[in-house]
Every structure is written in structure tokens, then in C-alpha cells.
């Protein structure tokens, strides 16, 4: 299906029949010479990451893990401990900004920044709603896969700059892991891109719209799609250094891996980057395989559930919910599974995930060519 055909699909629930209506409007907003709208567009994902990391990322994870482990979690600060994260942030802000004497000061300071930028840049191409996307690139998916590699630079800078053996181990492991797992992850995403015939994130979503809700999602559109879906999910765990692949920061082996020497706000920035990447991969998997901002509810005769739950605001709700669901699965796995060993991790990547990713790639190609 060509791109011109896509744009002819009628999307009556969109404002002015137009994708990206909000972001386009914002982009046109200027304050004399100052491009205020562009700044707001960039600020929206930033504020989102900060808010979600504070609420769901830190507090939510602590509570979820607590309930999985038969305990209560934070309970002291505020009702049910809801102010705990704020207290933590205040504590981190007050901390002395320590740079170890023998550290490479430039790399040490710059590392967390690069790390955060790497995970934040990918938010530019995440369609948060049918009406909002930071940058409507026609190679959005490719950009998202590629920009994540920037994190590696940050991790290596942080690990090397710390001048700590544990940090170095963590950084070396992390780089090997992320670079390796990008291959199965990218191939698995290519399966989705192949089904869509486009790399434009917004268009991938549009193609999964339809009155039958979830039945239009790529996960249910082909009998092979579950395989790249699963491969990408596993690979994304490794890319974001989440358990059971949290080998770079393996606390019981490497103390804290590449951020052993970090404290205070630099530590907070590293964590923010981690939570950013968690949402980013969760959003990408829901965009490519689970319809992104599309409502999963189907129209049932006159009960038009799909139509009722579609629209720019609903779209934002759906994609964030789907992202949060996958983050929940990540947390669930983290608090259930032990950690793999470095060589087992590489074995899984090169001898299991990569061949299966190729197989799913070929099968998806055959399916797309021969099955209309």
C-alpha cells in the first residue's frame, strides 16, 4: 500500500481530518522571532518522562514490587507514602555533587547527559496521539532504532570516566549487550515495518486503525507476528538493561555497574534516562505491534465502542496505557527472575534471538507477498 493511498483513509475522529493537528498547530506558534511552539513540543515529552518517572516509575515500581514481595513499600511520607518520591528528589537535590578525584571529569559529567539525551531523543518520533508527534519523520522507526545507540556512548563515558573497575566492567558489558541486542530488535521491528510498508510511526498507527479494534493490530494480522513481537520484547529488556538482563548494573556482581560512582542529581539523571528508555521501548512495541494510539475495543453492531474510544485524547490515553502495561510486565519480570550470566546473555542474543528474528523476517515477507 503506497503512502498516498494511506493519506486517503478517512479518519473522521481526527480534528480537521488531519494527522498531527496539535503538533502542527504548535509548530506554527511563534512569539515574534522565538519558536515557542517548538519548545513546547520538545517540553511535552520531557515533562511526561519526569512525571511518569516520578509517579509510575519510582513510586509505582516500589509499590508493585512491594506487593509482589508481601510487603507494603513506602508508607511513611504522606498517605500510603505517595510523597516518598518527592522526598527522594529533595534529598538528591541537596546532595553534594561529587566528582571522584581521579575520575576523568569531563566524561564523568557528560556521561549521564548523553545517556539521557539518547533516550529522550527517541521520544521525538513517538506519536503520543493521532494529533501529536514531536517530529513526523518518514523514517521514524529507523530513527528510533538508531538513536538509542547514543546511550551506549553515554554509558561508556560514564563507566570509563569514573575510573572505577566495577564501572568499567559495567560499561564494557553494557556496550556489548546493547550493541548485540540491537540486531534482533531491529530485525523484529522490521517485520512490523514490512507489514506496514512504511517507517513513519504515525502511518504505522494509521494502518492499524479500523472498526474491529484490536483485530487490526499487527500482532493479530499475521500468524507469525507474535514471534517478532516476543523477540523485540526480550531484546528491549536487554537494551534498557532491565532484569533478567540487568547485567551492566548487576548489583550483586558489579556493585552498581557503570553508575557506581554517581550520586546526587547525576544519579537521578541516569535513572531518568533508564525510565525514559523503559517507556520508549514499551511505546515502540505497542506502536508497531499493538496499534499504538488505536483503541483495542471493537465496534459491536450499534455499540460503537471503537468510535467512542477514539480521538486525539483517547489516543494519548491508549498509547500511554499500553506503554504502562509493558512497563508493568518489565517490572513483573524484574521481581521474578534471576539474572543471566554475560555469556548466556550473548548466547541468547546471537544463537537464539537473531536466527529466530531472521526466520520471522523471512516468514513475514512470504506472508506479506503471498497472502493479500
Amino acid at each position, binding site marked *: 500500500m503506497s503512502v498516498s493511498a494511506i493519506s486517503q483513509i478517512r479518519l473522521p475522529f481526527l480534528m480537521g481530518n488531519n494527522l498531527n493537528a496539535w503538533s502542527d498547530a504548535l509548530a506554527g506558534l511563534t512569539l515574534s522571532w522565538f519558536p515557542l511552539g517548538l519548545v513546547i513540543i520538545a517540553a511535552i515529552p520531557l515533562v511526561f518522562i519526569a512525571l511518569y518517572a516520578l509517579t509510575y516509575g519510582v513510586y509505582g515500581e516500589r509499590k508493585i514490587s512491594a506487593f509482589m514481595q508481601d510487603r507494603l513499600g513506602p508508607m511513611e511520607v504522606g498517605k500510603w507514602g505517595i510523597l516518598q518520591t518527592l522526598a527522594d528528589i529533595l534529598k538528591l537535590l541537596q546532595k553534594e555533587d561529587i566528582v571522584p578525584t581521579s575520575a576523568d571529569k569531563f566524561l564523568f559529567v557528560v556521561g549521564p547527559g548523553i545517556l539521557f539525551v539518547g533516550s529522550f531523543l527517541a521520544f521525538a518520533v513517538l506519536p503520543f496521539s493521532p494529533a501529536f508527534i514531536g517530529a513526523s519523520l518518514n523514517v521514524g522507526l529507523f530513527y528510533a532504532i538508531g538513536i538509542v545507540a547514543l546511550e551506549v556512548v553515554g554509558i561508556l563515558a560514564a563507566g570509563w570516566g569514573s575510573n572505577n573497575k566495577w564501572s568499567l*566492567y559495567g560499561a564494557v558489558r553494557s556496550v556489548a549487550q546493547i550493541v548485540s541486542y540491537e540486531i534482533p530488535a531491529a530485525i523484529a521491528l522490521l517485520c512490523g515495518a514490512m507489514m506496514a510498508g512504511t517507517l513513519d510511526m504515525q502511518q504505522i498507527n494509521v494502518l492499524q486503525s479500523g472498526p474491529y479494534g484490536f483485530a487490526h493490530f499487527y500482532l493479530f494480522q499475521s500468524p507469525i507476528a507474535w514471534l517478532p513481537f516476543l523477540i523485540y520484547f526480550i531484546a528491549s529488556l536487554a537494551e534498557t538493561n532491565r532484569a533478567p538482563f540487568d547485567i551492566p548494573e*548487576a548489583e*550483586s*556482581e558489579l556493585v552498581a555497574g557503570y553508575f557506581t560512582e554517581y550520586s546526587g542529581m547525576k544519579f537521578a539523571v541516569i535513572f531518568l534516562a533508564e525510565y525514559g528508555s523503559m517507556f520508549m521501548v514499551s511505546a515502540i512495541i505497542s506502536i508497531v505491534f499493538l496499534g499504538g494510539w488505536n483503541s483495542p475495543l471493537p465496534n459491536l453492531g450499534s455499540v460503537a465502542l471503537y468510535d467512542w474510544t477514539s480521538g486525539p485524547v483517547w489516543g494519548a490515553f491508549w498509547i500511554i496505557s499500553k506503554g504502562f502495561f509493558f512497563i508493568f510486565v518489565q517490572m513483573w519480570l524484574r*521481581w521474578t527472575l534471576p*539474572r543471566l550470566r554475560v555469556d548466556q546473555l550473548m548466547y541468547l542474543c546471537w544463537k537464539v534471538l537473531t536466527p529466530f528474528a531472521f526466520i520471522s523476517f523471512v516468514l513475514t515477507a512470504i506472508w506479506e507477498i503471498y497472502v493479500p
Partner: protein
Amino acid sequence: MQELGMAEQGSIRVSRKDGNVVVIEKDLATEEMVLSMGPQHPSTHGVLKLECMTDGEVVTSAEPYLGYLHRCFEKHCEVVDYPGIVPYTDRMDYLAGMNNEWAYCIAVEKLLDIEIPRRVEFIRVMVSELNRIASHLVAIGTYGIDLGAFTPFLFCFRDREHILNLLEWASGARMLYNYIWIGGVAFDIPADFNKRVKEFVDYFRPKVVELYKLLTENEIFVKRTKGIGIMPADVAINYAWSGPMLRGSGVKWDLRRNDPYSVYPELDFNVPVPDGKFSDIGDCLSRHLVRALEMEESLNIIEQCISKMPASDGFNPRSAVPKRVRPKAGEVYARAENPRGELGFYIQSDGKSTKPLRCKARSSCFVNLSAMKDLSKGQLIPDLVAIIGSIDIVLGEVDR
């Protein structure tokens, strides 16, 4: 073309052939890195320091450095009278205080040659087996953490809390009990204690199965531990290993059976050893498995204690406690099966003093740890962590 020798000169690898130096490979120079693991490291279980020579992720040798927690136990014993040593033994293996006290009391009682009331023996068995479960729960839980599984640890601590509450009820302390005295116990167990213990046993049995499913049978856990750190039975015996470590190597050796003390001969329990089906004999998984299975055996022992324990009518827990401990001149060695292996006390008395002339503790952890250098050779760093965790050391007992 026989190469007579290799030498590394900077970044150029050369070989000497017929006295001439021939360059065979130009390569990036690699050198081994010293990695000090500990004394402040999350998985050395206290203040153990391992100085590892590492080649990338491979540990070429690991040397344990001890003594960070040395508290002069043996020297203290020479200036404290016999009953006063009991609290110090608590602080050796602080996860199994009851077992330590008991081993020490057995030694002194052997020296004094006193008869222990039967109910006291059953109380001692019961609290020690409870403590053994608590200790194994910590061992299993922290082993999970070493391998990255956090949740089993908290499940273990949740269940351990019940045991600590029971022991606190009996002795007044949670970990450092001073409950087993020379010739008796400090107090009789409270009324209804046996009922509560029975409730705990019924509560805990399903939890053991849950823990087994969550951790022991976990695919990743098995992958991380199976075939790692294999210790053959003969080498284990030569290293004087004992307890779950030795049984993990397939040797059916349990002092409660092989050198029975107290009322253990009357009690019916198995000594679990791995059969080599689920784990490779002598690997980390076997040692973990032995601990997991032993908890169930301890539950059996506790249940038998409850049913066989004589009634408390007119029972004085301190009836056999001597007013003044002054043994005849002589020496004694007594040992008991601790959660971590054989804990022995060698005591020498000069016959005049109320203080021992010499008190030497044969610590199971210390002996088990001595094999570390052998076990760690050529392992990866994550495997090294798995091996330390499977040895299950308590630095309080290693350093004393």
C-alpha cells in the same frame, strides 16, 4: 618447528627458536587486572575481601583475605568463665546462635560429665532446628540475591520472621539468644509454644514448595548454578568440608547421624544428598538443593520433638545447671552439626580455674571457605559470585 619458549615483550608476542627471537604476533597488549572484591561488596556476605586477578571477565585466581571481623573470640574465652562464653558463641555465626551455643555447651558438659534432663534435650533440638531453618532461609534468600532474584529473599525473610518471633518468645532475643546454658536452658519454653511451633510448621510446609518453584526450579537459576564450582567428593573431604557443602558433593555425612549427640538417635529424619539427576553432584546447585531439602527434614524433626517432648510438670530447666563451673583438668573436643557444617569446640581446662585454659573453635565457614582459591580458578566473575553464595559464609564465624 618446535617452539622453545614464549615470552611477552610489550605489545609484541615473540617466541624464541634456536636462540633467535622471532616475532610471531603483533597484538594489543593485555594484562591481568587486580580486582578487589570486598570488603565492601554486596555479595561477599559481610566483610570478606577477595583479591581477584582478572583477565577480562575471567578470574584467574582469587585469594580470600580474612580478619575484618576478628573479635578475639578465643582470647576472650581465656578471661571469661565458662557460662560467660555462651553469649560470645552467639556472635560467631549470628544466623544460627542456638546451634553455636549448643555446640559449646555440649563440649563443656562433656568436660563436666553431667546428665541433661530429657525435656531440655528436646527443647534444645527444637530451637536448634528452628534456627537451622532460619539460617537456611537466609542462605537461600541471599543466594537468590547473588544471582539477581530479589523476591525469594523477601519471601525467605518473611518466613524467617516467624521463627525469630518464636525464638524471641522463648529466649527474649531475636538473634543472640543466650538461651542454651551449660547443663540446661535459660527458661522453659512458654506455654502453648509447641502449639505455635506446630502452626508454624503447617504454615511453612507450603512455603517451602513455593520457594522451590520460584527459585530452585527456575530455568535461569538452574542455568546459573548447574555445573558451576564443582567440588569432587574426595577433594571436599581433603579440604575438611562439612555440612551442606560436603553433602552437596555427594558424601552422606551428617554429625546428627554419624556422630550422634543429644536425642538425635531417637528422631527419624533423612540426610539429603543430591542424586545427580537435577544437579551435577558437587556443584552450586547441589549445595543449594541440600539446604532446601534440609529445611523439610528440620520440619520433620520439629514435629517429632513436639510429640515426644516430656511434659513440663515440675520441670526446672536449670536443675542440672552447675552453680560454679570448674571442670577437672583435661581437654575435650565436641562437635555439632550446624547449618553451615561441623562446629567444634576444643576446650582445655587446668582443673583450678573457672576459666578455660584454651578454647578453640573449629569453624565450619572458615574451613569451607578455604577451598575458595581452588574453586574460583578460571571462573567468570558472575560464577565467582555464585560460588561464594553457595558456600554460605557468615563472616562472624570465619573471623571469630
